[in-house]
């Protein structure tokens, strides 16, 4: 009797467990529950977008927050905006601009632009917005993007000049990140500016229910093309697998930042070149990697295609021998990735006179997509050509300290790079210039060209300088450029949207099938 009851009890427990887990093996394929859309409207007039987290604020001038930008990029506009595919600045609130002298830019404002509160855009709003973001007391987290701006002044009601500290050829791109706010509104609402956004964009915020959702609605008096989707709801789902579930259950129409392994499961996948990607920095200053032959050898030793295909599931492309992608200012179209040639690598290592000395590779893990696995793959490939690579993972803070301290620079260092200005200066000044905070490269000649290009106002000459620098740090390698990662979005069946190269989530460029 006792034995029996024990057996039955166990069976019951097992059955309970299976009934929990077993349903997911799906004897009944998913039927869309009827109750979900009670009175299914013929044409959906609203979509739901799942972000990775709740915006910290809706003041587009304050935080450096991608979740916020996903909303505010549809609510606010800059003087200029980026073309989502070519990454070239194009007119937005300014219809044209000219360089008056190397430190003065003049902008003609579009006429008849309305803010969501009914006010008309004037030069005062622009001057106010520029001076607000560079004001040290305001403590904007993105003020660093605008550190070259000295001031802004009104010429007349529809003309504004922006004065820089020195020549700054990257000004047009910077201005795509500087959102124009309504002076009167900001001055009258005080602290509430973080929750009551008033912009000129195609959508206006109608509700922010903290922790739950943000609702936006098409702005009828928008100056530009009328967007296709009338309304949208933003939800905040941090956990990636929950975003996937919500998309599969039909609760949301767009899920951002899916893992490559989830991509197979969603109704529709859309990708674009992403912003951040991993690379290996080589120590050009000192140690074993100071030998150019060794730096060339490691470049030949890495099978970049295998990493793109196997580690990132195909959601990555092989980097073009540089840290830029087509479309970036300074991209060198003549550079090709170093081919995967282990024999050549071994030969170079022999020529370099390498005797099995230990080579450090410092990485971190858990911060970026598959960072630990990436460093592991690199170190395996290097060991395969006979290098005695010692891979160490540091915790984030320690890794940062190492990254920013040239004295402690290891032979090789894993890092991740993103350039939201799409302009070579940001990358070269920080990673290649011998005085750059994250640089372990040391070449007076390269330094000179970087300094020169930074203030070169002729775009063609500037581009040429950057291409020369690109070639120099390719021939005498500063990095192992491996892959560029793609942003992966999950879309519902009827949502149509082509993701952008700048990772912005542009509601006004989306459409629903049947509209």
């Amino acid at each position, binding site marked *: 009797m006792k034995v029996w009851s024990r057996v039955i009890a166990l069976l019951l*427990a097992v059955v309970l467990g299976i009934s*929990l887990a077993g349903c997911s093996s799906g004897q009944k394929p998913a039927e869309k529950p009827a109750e979900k859309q009670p009175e299914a409207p013929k044409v959906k007039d609203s979509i739901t977008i799942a972000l990775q987290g709740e915006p910290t604020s809706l003041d587009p001038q*304050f935080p450096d927050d991608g979740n916020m930008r996903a909303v505010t990029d549809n609510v606010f506009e800059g003087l200029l905006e980026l073309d989502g595919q070519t990454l070239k600045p194009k007119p937005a609130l300014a219809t044209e601009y000219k360089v008056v002298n190397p430190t003065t830019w003049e902008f003609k404002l579009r006429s008849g632009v309305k803010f969501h509160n009914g006010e008309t855009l004037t030069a005062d709003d622009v001057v106010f917005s520029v001076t607000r973001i560079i004001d040290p007391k305001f403590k904007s*987290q993105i003020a*660093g993007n605008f550190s070259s701006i000295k001031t802004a002044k009104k010429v007349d009601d529809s003309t504004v000049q922006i004065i820089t500290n020195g020549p700054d050829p990257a000004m047009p791109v910077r201005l795509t990140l500087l959102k124009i706010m309504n002076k009167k509104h900001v001055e009258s609402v005080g602290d509430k500016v973080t929750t009551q956004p008033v912009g000129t964009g195609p959508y206006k915020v109608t509700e922010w229910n903290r922790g739950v959702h943000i609702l936006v609605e098409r702005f009828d008096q928008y100056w530009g093309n009328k967007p296709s989707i009338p309304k949208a709801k933003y*939800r905040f789902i941090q956990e990636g697998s929950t975003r996937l579930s919500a998309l599969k259950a039909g609760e949301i129409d767009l899920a951002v930042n899916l893992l490559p392994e989830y991509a197979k499961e969603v109704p529709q996948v859309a990708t674009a070149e992403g912003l951040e990607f991993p690379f290996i920095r080589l120590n050009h200053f000192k140690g074993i990697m100071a030998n150019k032959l060794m730096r060339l050898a490691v470049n030949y030793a890495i099978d970049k295609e295998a990493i793109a295909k196997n580690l990132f599931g195909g959601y990555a492309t092989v980097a073009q021998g540089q840290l830029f992608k087509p479309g970036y200012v300074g991209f060198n179209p003549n550079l090709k990735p170093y081919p995967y040639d282990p024999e050549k690598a071994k030969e170079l290592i022999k020529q370099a006179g390498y005797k099995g000395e230990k080579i450090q590779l410092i990485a971190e893990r858990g911060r970026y997509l598959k960072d630990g696995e990436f460093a592991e793959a690199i170190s395996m490939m290097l060991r395969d050509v006979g290098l005695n690579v010692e891979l160490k993972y540091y915790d984030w803070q320690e890794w940062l300290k190492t990254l920013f301290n040239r004295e402690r620079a290891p032979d090789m260092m894993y890092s991740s790079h*993103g350039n939201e200005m799409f302009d070579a200066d940001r990358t070269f000044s920080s990673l290649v210039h011998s005085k750059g905070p994250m640089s372990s490269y040391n070449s007076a000649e390269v330094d000179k060209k970087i300094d020169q290009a930074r203030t070169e106002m002729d775009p063609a000459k500037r581009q040429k300088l950057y291409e020369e620098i690109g070639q120099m740090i390719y021939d005498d390698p500063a990095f192992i450029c491996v892959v560029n990662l793609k942003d992966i979005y999950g879309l519902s069946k009827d949502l149509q949207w082509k993701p952008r190269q700048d990772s912005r989530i542009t509601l006004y460029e989306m459409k629903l099938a049947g509209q």
Partner: protein
Amino acid sequence: MLRYVFTRLIYTVVVILGVSLLVFVITHVIGNPVNVMLPLQASEEERAQLKHQLGLDKPLSTQLKEFLAGMVRLDFGKSWWQQEPALQLALRRVPATFQLVIMAFTVAALISIPLGIIAAYRPGSIIDRFLTTTSLVGVCLPSFWVGLLLVITFAVKLGWFATSGYGTYRHIVLPVVTLAILPAGHMAQIMRFSMLDQLNQQYVTTARAKGLDEATVVFKHALKNAATAVLTMGGMDLGRMLAGETAAVEMVYAWPGFGSLILETIARQDFPLLQASVFVVAVIICLINLAVDLSYGLFDPRIRY
């Protein structure tokens, strides 16, 4: 009684002060919010400037003094990311978590206590065996994983409930069930154990011998004595749910409570908001413990304050 409550409240203040100090020291010694707030590409000057703006370049003792002076006035400063008073932001997240925890706790108690009593009354029976096995499973399952499983089964495949979010019954059922599993397992085990213990006491035999009906024996005498153990355990579970379990569950279900807030805040190293959130949680847990201690008196007449 009043005197006891008063003393306990003083202890509470000491505990909260201790917790806040600990969090202050840990965050300021280990953390580096500047590196989290700025992009990797930021220059040394940008880093130094932000450090200055946040007041992190002052000596630690000065920062501590300012923090304590603010805390006395319940002013933790503005959140570095959200630019709103930190305490206000933390308090705004309390109701959602309370809703979740109280419902989950009620569900757990309603299931586990009756089952525990029945199991103890008929030890070795099928129900008893079933209960001891399942409660063990319940205690061992990580709620994060259970949550994902329930979402896939009941939201994606069957479509009965929403996968995540906040608002209607469709949103609350799954998180409540997920959160209830662990305390239900715990309380069922404790209920069974202490009830079994009481039913074997001599006073139970005496009560039966003098002809009291079985219901009175079990519910009036044995249960009353067995209750204190469950109460202690329940109080601890409630604290644990509020301070830890909810964070994982809120994460899976995108529930807007303070568990997920604390996780986000740690990731962003938003010190003022982190301090305020920890303060709120510490106050709530201290109050729960006080309530549990006071309620012992209801069940055990020997306990007087």
